[in-house]
């Protein structure tokens, strides 16, 4: 159960990050977002 909650949390934040990267206009901010996103994606796939 706790793993499902964890997955939902990470998934929610991942979508937020993707949405942020798409909307953001400044390149450097987009890049920063993507770097954080990589960590979240790896966590989502339980590669950590």
């Amino acid at each position: 159960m706790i793993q499902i909650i964890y997955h939902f949390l990470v998934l929610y934040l991942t979508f937020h990050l993707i949405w942020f990267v798409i909307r953001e206009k400044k390149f450097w901010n987009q890049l920063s977002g993507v770097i954080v996103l990589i960590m979240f994606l790896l966590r989502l796939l339980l590669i950590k």
Partner: protein
Amino acid sequence: MKKHQATAFLLLLLAALVCFFAGREFLTMHEEEAVYPSPHLTIKKRLSDYFPGLKNSPGDSSVYIFEGQKMGGTLLILGGTHPNEPAGFITAVLLVENLEVTQGKVIIVPRANNSGFMHSDPQEGNPQRYSLSTPGGPRWFRYGSRLTNPIHQWPDSVLYVNPAGQKLSGTESRNLNRSYPGRKHGKLTEKIAYAIMQVIDNEKADLAVDLHEAAPEYPVINAIVFHENSAELAAVTLMTLQMEGVDIRLEASPPNLRGLSHREWGDFAKTRAVLLETANTSHGRLKGRPSATLIINGKDKNYMKAAQLGLLFVPFDEDGISLKQRVSRHLASLRALVSGLHELHPDLCIQLDNLPNPIEVQKVGIGPYLTPSK
């Protein structure tokens, strides 16, 4: 599509690529090294054959059984209880690949905590694997973690009350050597412990040996830790080893330290329980850069300094304490234990043929005793 959106998709693609390659590299940790059992192997089983609750789980692991023609004693050898203690694991592999048992029975579990082999300790910078050269080329082996993979058992509670009732810190719930006698419906590590107890029970092991390593600054090294039911056996073993020039010390298993193999195997399974420790530089906190070379040659400048300051419990010089020395020590101890068991209980004879000679292993290395990769 606006320019910033195009950049976003490009960057997202890049992130996906990074994830793919990083993930692929990460998942190589789940690969199991090849083990080529000796032609004298009687049967290969799995832990799940003894406890079906482990079937298809990352805790399931191979159990190699060598049975002699003549009746005798039964010996269980566990390697890889802690997958970051390679001498125990490699000793078990060497036995699986060389042994011939003509009397009695020997059961070997090289990867006792299989899940622990499938990850590395974060922030330790440990190598994922190390290679040993054999006449047919190098063979690689996994260097894992002391604890069960958190992907397989998560989250850790703040406090862990183990099956024997001892209160420990939460992370210890993933330590196989704190989880005995195990729980049938417990966490993965407890299930592994339960399965091992089933092996001891079903096979009626007369002697069970857990192979370990510890840091040179830890007081219990180059030691035989014994349950009180094996006190005489441990003393006889020590004397045999001293005659062979192997310096070793005795440590009694404290009855109030619960959940460990040398305590619960003896208390619950009533087998003679012994744990062997060697000194491993790559395991210690004082080491310099962790590397595969350090695992194999055990040389470290910091440890030399620590030895000069009298902080270590074993002699340590510029030659280090190599893996072949540590494996040789485990082999010599196992041989002495088996002969001690026979001396004290003549009906429990176990005849080990083709056991790699500890002195030769120290001289020529481990490689010549490993089967070249096929």
